[in-house]
């Protein structure tokens, strides 16, 4: 096992060295790579390059007075084994004012959904019980719209404000959902984006420990000997070798057998954060990349750009809409505030951490909630029942 583990680690180091060498190689010639990216069709997500591949951008100075708005959400999922099929969404609100000594706003507001029309929804012509999946969507939508409202209210009171969202701004998980559902959720999100843009409040999504591999994918594409790659017709895949003569197949097989795999394989298994951590120093960010997620075709003027940021403790991924990416002042503000927030929160933005603390509904809270609900039902002479399964779990006989 130790021998194997050592081999894995050595293998990883070799991959990383290759990736770094490739990264350096493409740095001055990023436009060639960008052109290849635009022409090629790959099975993996590639970054759109806006202003280069590598090189760190130094941390700008944060304005002395700035307010940071953040929200986070948590929920009690509907449970059909319980007395009621209701569910609860709790949103934590944080508004921290820096440089003024003002009292921060730190609160949470729960919303209980229990009415028939609240626990059943109709999407794609199907009436369905609001399940965990839907509650999750509802919660993340609410996190974002409430963040926009909080930031707008802060701005209305005269605070210069930056809005931080927990996680990605790319609603890729809407892919494959019924069309009306997708449209409705997108529209609400984009309306919130519109209002932020109109108020010129920069918004950024922060992803801790990102697993994304877009940059690595770009380097993989750089390794592909073809001028224009098309993974569906990759000549190194046996199923695409029809019509090749034996010599050609022999050469390709030779290559594969020598353990090289596909030309792009040597970089398999790396992610962007690992690569970038060897390129950036604390406080620096990468250039901007444009996400090419399919869902963004429907984002209009809010298409999402991202950069990786060395916050010291880790590499984070910061996502911003186009109107922030193309406004140098807002972009600098986001960069500076993200670094400052991570410093203050020992590696993770303090406003997001506090929003989570306010929002979180723990197992014990859930139990208390249902106990309170049962007691109140009983006190008010409402007939209640829990499922036999749930009952059995609590009172197991011998």
């Amino acid at each position, binding site marked *: 096992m130790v021998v194997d583990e050592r081999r894995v680690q050595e293998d990883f180091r070799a991959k990383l060295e290759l990736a770094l060498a490739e990264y350096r190689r493409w740095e001055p010639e990023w436009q060639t790579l960008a052109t290849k990216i635009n022409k090629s069709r790959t099975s993996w997500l590639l970054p759109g390059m806006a202003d280069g591949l590598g090189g760190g951008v130094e941390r700008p100075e944060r304005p002395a007075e700035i307010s940071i708005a953040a929200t986070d959400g948590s929920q009690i999922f509907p449970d059909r084994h319980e007395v009621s099929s209701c569910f609860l969404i709790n949103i934590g*609100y*944080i*508004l*921290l*004012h*820096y*440089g*003024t*000594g*003002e*009292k*921060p*706003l*730190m*609160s*949470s*507001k729960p919303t209980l959904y229990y009415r028939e029309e609240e626990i059943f929804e109709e999407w794609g012509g199907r009436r369905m019980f609001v399940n965990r999946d839907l509650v999750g969507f509802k919660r993340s939508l609410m996190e974002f719209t409430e963040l926009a*409202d*909080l930031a*707008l*209210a*802060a701005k*209305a*009171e005269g605070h210069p404000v930056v809005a931080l969202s927990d996680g990605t701004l790319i609603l890729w998980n809407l892919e494959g959902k019924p069309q009306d559902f997708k449209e409705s959720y997108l529209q609400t999100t984009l309306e919130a984006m519109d209002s932020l843009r109109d108020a010129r409040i920069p918004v950024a999504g922060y992803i801790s420990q990102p697993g994304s591999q877009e940059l690595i994918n770009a380097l993989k594409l750089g390794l592909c000997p073809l001028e224009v790659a098309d993974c569906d017709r990759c000549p190194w895949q046996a199923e695409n070798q029809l019509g090749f003569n034996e010599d050609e197949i022999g050469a390709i097989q030779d290559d594969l057998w020598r353990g090289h795999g596909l030309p792009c394989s040597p970089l398999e298994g790396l992610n962007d954060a690992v690569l970038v951590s060897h390129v950036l120093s604390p406080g620096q960010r990468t250039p901007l990349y444009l996400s090419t997620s399919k869902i963004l075709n429907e984002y209009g003027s809010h298409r999402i750009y991202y950069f990786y940021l060395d916050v010291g403790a880790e590499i984070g991924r910061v996502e911003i809409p186009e109107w922030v990416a193309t406004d140098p002042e807002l972009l600098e503000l986001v960069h500076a505030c993200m670094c400052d927030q991570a410093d*203050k929160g020992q590696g993770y933005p*303090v406003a997001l951490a*506090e929003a989570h*603390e306010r929002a979180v509904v723990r197992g014990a809270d859930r139990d208390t909630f249902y106990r309170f609900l049962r007691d109140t039902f009983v006190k008010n002479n409402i007939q209640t029942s829990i499922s036999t399964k749930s009952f059995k779990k609590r009172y197991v006989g011998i």
Partner: protein
Amino acid sequence: MTRVENVKERKPSPLSRFMPDEMAKRDGAGAERTYVGEVVESSTTELIAEARELHGGPSFGEFIRIEADLPVLGIIFNVFTHSIEPNRRPTAYGKTEEELRLEQPQIFELLRTEFQALIIGYLDGGAPVQILPPQPARIHSFVHLCTDEEVRAFTGNDDYLRRILNTSKVPTDELLIAVLRHTLRAHKHSRDYLVRMGKELSRLMGDDYDRLSSVIRRVAN
């Protein structure tokens, strides 16, 4: 001190929707109230109250009055500040309080000051009674600091001192000294009061001359 406190307008602010209910209330009607704390634990002999402001508890030895039909009177024997989250502890930042207020404002929202008081009597129809009250102060009732006048009225006689000496909760002499320094101030450092107090103390602890002289020395200087 902060901008929020200086805002005098009555109309709800755009942010009020996001404020916790207590905060919204406090900024409104509660602002004129003059209480220093609110009772959160209560018994016949002592109580714990949460200070209205962080680090805003009464001083050690100070007299307090708790709102009730028969207002309860007590003296502060402990003031403490701690984290409101059971699993989060304050850590050192290496910054002054001023710097922290500017750059780490959230930490002051996560701390709370509480104080403990020893019950020493109550008011019946406005008249002080140096006996424990028939009913303890109610939870959530407001705590006020006693005015000098109230302290003078209550310390018209010195029977309450025995209650302090009999408590096993605190370093008794320290509490006694702190209380007497407050009462002496309320009596405007009157010589008559000082003499009366000295006599009462010598009655209470006359069998221990060293202790008595230490207490009197520290009250009077």
